[in-house]
């Protein structure tokens, strides 16, 4: 178990990216919706092996469930069709709508759960480094990494500013108009202070030769292992197998 866990977490970032892309293609290659829904279970299983099941389930529940439920409600009531399953007044649930919803949501669930899993088992720093090795500009990877790092920091700042504004009498609860009014005094200082910090950041980066056109060394080491080769080969074989099976039918 522990071995499997470290195996999954230590896979090379681009290998995980390939897995995610593979899973994103599957729903469009395979017929029906059963396989696509199975992907959710497979992803959950992998997340469990990696020890991230709780986070994974949480994000699936918060991110994917609302939209899936809404699609079902909208389509089953309003999709044109004749096979009426259940009706109440002028409203009726139709078989065609359910079928359409199943098709649509299976794809969304499959792709969504693959993406959630990918970000759960991949460190953003590792991903950025592997992209850099692939030839992506260091400026682009810097933007990616630093966005992910700044957000928690800014969240803290926002809580602090909200507290400060509340203490000087800005109301944050009550009627909609009152709450709308609280938006500006909370946000303006936060935005202004974080934007003005970019000047110092530019000086710091420049003093570390960020824009210099030379080859740079990196402290972060990433290595491809036998496991990566294995996973990539299995994926390739699976993909070829699925394509042959699908188009020979």
């Amino acid at each position: 178990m522990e071995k499997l866990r470290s195996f999954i977490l230590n896979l090379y970032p681009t290998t995980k990216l390939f897995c995610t892309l593979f899973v994103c293609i599957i729903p469009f290659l395979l017929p029906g919706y059963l396989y696509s829904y199975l992907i959710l279970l497979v992803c959950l299983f992998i997340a469990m092996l990696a020890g991230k099941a709780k986070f994974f389930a949480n994000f699936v529940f918060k991110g994917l469930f609302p939209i899936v439920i809404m699609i079902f409600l909208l389509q089953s009531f309003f999709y044109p069709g004749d096979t009426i399953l259940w009706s109440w007044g002028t409203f009726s649930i139709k078989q065609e709508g359910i079928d359409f919803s199943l098709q649509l949501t299976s794809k969304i669930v499959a792709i969504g759960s693959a993406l959630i899993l990918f970000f759960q088992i991949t460190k953003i720093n590792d991903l950025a480094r592997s992209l850099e090795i692939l030839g992506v500009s260091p400026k682009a990877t810097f933007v990616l990494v630093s966005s992910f790092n700044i957000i928690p920091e800014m969240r803290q700042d926002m809580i602090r500013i909200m507290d400060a504004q509340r203490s000087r009498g800005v109301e944050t609860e009550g009627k909609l108009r009152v709450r709308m009014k609280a938006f500006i005094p909370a946000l303006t200082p936060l935005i202004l202070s974080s934007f003005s910090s970019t000047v110092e950041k530019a000086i710091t980066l420049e003093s570390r030769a960020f824009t210099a056109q030379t080859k740079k060394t990196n402290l972060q080491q990433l290595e491809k292992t036998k496991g990566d080769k294995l996973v990539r080969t299995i994926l390739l074989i699976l993909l070829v197998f699925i394509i042959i099976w699908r188009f020979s039918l």
Partner: protein
Amino acid sequence: MKGIKKDFTLMAILLIPIGVAVNVVAGELVHLLKVPIFLNQIGTMIVAMLAGPWVGAATGAVSKLFFGVFDPAQLAFLPVSMATGIVVGLLAKKGMTTKIWKVTVTGFIVAIVAILIATPITIMVFGGASGTGSDAFTAVLLASGREIWTAVFTQKIFVESFDKIFSIFVAYFVVRKMSDQYLSKQNYGYLYINNKSNKNNKNNKKVG
């Protein structure tokens, strides 16, 4: 292509993460205050106003990537936020974000572009649903016998126009509060410097 590369200076690149973070945190603040709109593109708009359309588009794209980590459905709307950045940036270059009435016009244009892009995405990818409270509105329209395209389009008109116009006003007021010294360091910051005496505006263009 050359123009795009020129826009991505070090200062502009440093704006992108801040813009992304502002988008995310403003989106959360809206949630915290229980205000029923998104307001999650304010950062994109500020960056587009200060650093041009392409940096704005990059901010929009990265912030949707970040939203997508927790809510993959958001990734489908990546073109909308990129378009927001591009439209605001292009209009800002033309000086359309320097006065209140111009900002209102810009807000309307951004909203129209957002509606035109978001409607087909919502229908083709999600069959008309978007996973937010505004779906109830779509459902009401559908129940009153409207077609799916009309229903989603109408719903988007209400949601997006209010959202985008409010966002651009917040962005405008924030940019107006920035110091001249800071604005002078940004690519398109000269547009907002010393705007009270509009006649001198042309002389100030060299500051950037």
